């Protein structure tokens, strides 16, 4: 197959679940002999959308890339005003929704490149759903466009222009059944889609749960968190539950918090939180393996690599009942529990901490789920089938 991935940013050092997923997928498809190119902007920073990289061809991790300059300079004042209204829960007018999207790295040359490329590939694959490269890009040749939305329940998923882009695409590629469920609830009249999932590499060798516990001096019930330590990801609720377990229940529970930036918390929480900062993958998996549970109480997830990584080392998870995606992961695998508030979170932590056999059974179920359904080989098989079914190959000659 010949494929063009269209992404808002694609460069070494660009962090984020969507970018990580696209890089893994594109690289592994090339490994299977497919002809893959990434069309993207010259931007790295998704706040400023400044053209930080040179336009033209490039190669990132062995993946051919063509960059195009962002041509709409971000109107900070306008975006700040719109963002205030969006964050306050207001529905902004459709014209302003379109303006908001145009301020997320819109590149006119990128749209021209999409038009030029559409007839030379089997599919244009856009991701994630809310940026100009997808919303405006998928309009160029909707008949050749597949969107991998990576969507969750948030204001942008209700924008008229975003919904029109999703409805107009030739097909949709879902990363989780929970994502599809949310999208179908929010957006009627979606085109056909296929559940593709995502891949997780199981550790090559078993991860010793004692190593990081011993090195970090972690004792008793330890729950771990990895990701952005901010309100949007419900990190304060995790820390609140751990503090409550210690101060209100009189039980020793430690939170091992990993992620970029400082974990800003009330003073009461500090004795119970080990801020490990940014750690490499080996340390993260070691801490996960040594934890009673990995806690992710975010309600805005389209997949959650953290949940899969926890299961890859046999550790159960505690997720939020209001997150359809992670709750569904737990229900399908049997690898985790879901909670609604502090009291339930504390009880779940203490339940797993006090019942090692239950913890082991949940962790093993999660690991089996990852092994069976989240391998890259299975994911690539599903991706190839989905593209072939949604956009039958056109027998294009290789360039």
């Amino acid at each position: 197959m010949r494929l063009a991935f269209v992404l808002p940013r694609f460069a070494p050092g660009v962090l984020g679940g969507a970018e990580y997923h696209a890089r893994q997928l594109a690289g592994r498809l090339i490994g299977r002999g497919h002809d893959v190119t990434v069309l993207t902007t010259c931007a790295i920073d998704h706040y400023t959308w400044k053209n930080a990289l040179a336009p033209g061809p490039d190669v990132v991790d062995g993946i051919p890339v063509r960059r195009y300059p962002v041509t709409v300079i971000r109107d900070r004042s306008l975006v700040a005003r719109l963002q205030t209204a969006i964050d306050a829960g207001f529905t902004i007018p459709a014209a302003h929704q379109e303006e908001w999207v145009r301020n997320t790295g819109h590149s006119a040359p990128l749209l021209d490149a999409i038009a030029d490329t559409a007839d030379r590939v089997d599919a244009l694959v856009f991701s994630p759903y809310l940026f100009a490269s997808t919303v405006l890009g998928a309009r160029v040749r909707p008949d050749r466009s597949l969107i991998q939305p990576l969507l969750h329940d948030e204001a942008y998923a209700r924008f008229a222009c975003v919904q029109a882009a999703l409805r107009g695409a030739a097909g949709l590629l879902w990363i989780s059944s929970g994502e599809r469920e949310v999208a179908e609830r929010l957006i009627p009249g979606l085109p056909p889609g296929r559940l593709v999932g995502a891949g997780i590499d199981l550790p090559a060798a078993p991860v010793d749960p004692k190593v990081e516990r011993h090195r970090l001096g972690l004792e008793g019930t330890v729950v771990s968190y990895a990701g952005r330590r901010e309100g949007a990801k419900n990190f304060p609720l995790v820390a609140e539950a751990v503090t409550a377990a210690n101060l209100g229940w009189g039980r020793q529970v430690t939170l091992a918090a990993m992620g970029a930036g400082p974990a800003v918390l009330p003073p009461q929480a500090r004795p119970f939180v080990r801020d490990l900062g940014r750690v490499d993958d080996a340390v993260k998996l070691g801490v996960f393996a040594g934890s009673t549970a990995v806690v992710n109480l975010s309600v805005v997830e389209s997949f959650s690599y953290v949940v899969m990584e926890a299961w890859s080392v046999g550790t159960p998870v505690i997720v939020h009942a209001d997150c359809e995606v992670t709750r569904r992961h737990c229900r399908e695998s049997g690898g985790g529990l879901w909670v609604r508030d502090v009291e339930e979170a504390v009880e779940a932590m203490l339940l797993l901490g006090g019942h090692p056999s239950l913890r082991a059974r949940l962790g093993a179920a999660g690991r089996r789920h990852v092994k069976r359904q989240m391998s890259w080989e299975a994911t690539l098989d599903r991706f190839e089938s989905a593209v072939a079914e949604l956009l039958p190959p056109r027998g294009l000659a290789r360039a």
Partner: protein
Amino acid sequence: MSEQALPRTDGAPPAGDTEPPPPDVEAIVGELQTEVLRKRAAGAYPADLLERLHTEFHPDEGLEPPEVRVLVESARPLRSDRPVVGGTIVFGKRVVRRLLAWYVAPIAQDQTRFNLAILRELRALEERVARLEERRPPEPEKGTRPRAHR
């Protein structure tokens, strides 16, 4: 779009192999929720501590009534942290503020009028909901404490 879960395409156990069934997490979560409801109804949880922690960990939630912020003040306090040129900077700011007052002050007044109008409507709606709730028959006590954690 008929499939409900990812098809087993890799790593599935061969036919005949047995493996333990996954834990019934629905049942475990159900028991956990029931236990929390029971303890909450029995007053087994430290309610004061939980309320205090909730305020500390979620400072943006429900601190002040909107009336506190309804009046928009166009004239901000003037200050500068610069040690030497601070006085000159404050004087400059004062001049700019005075020059722009004719433009900024009406905007602030318009916003205040809008805030007041919205707040009046909101309070009227609140009273109407309260009246409607009074007319409804009481629901059985469930022992739950509504609190949004998002």
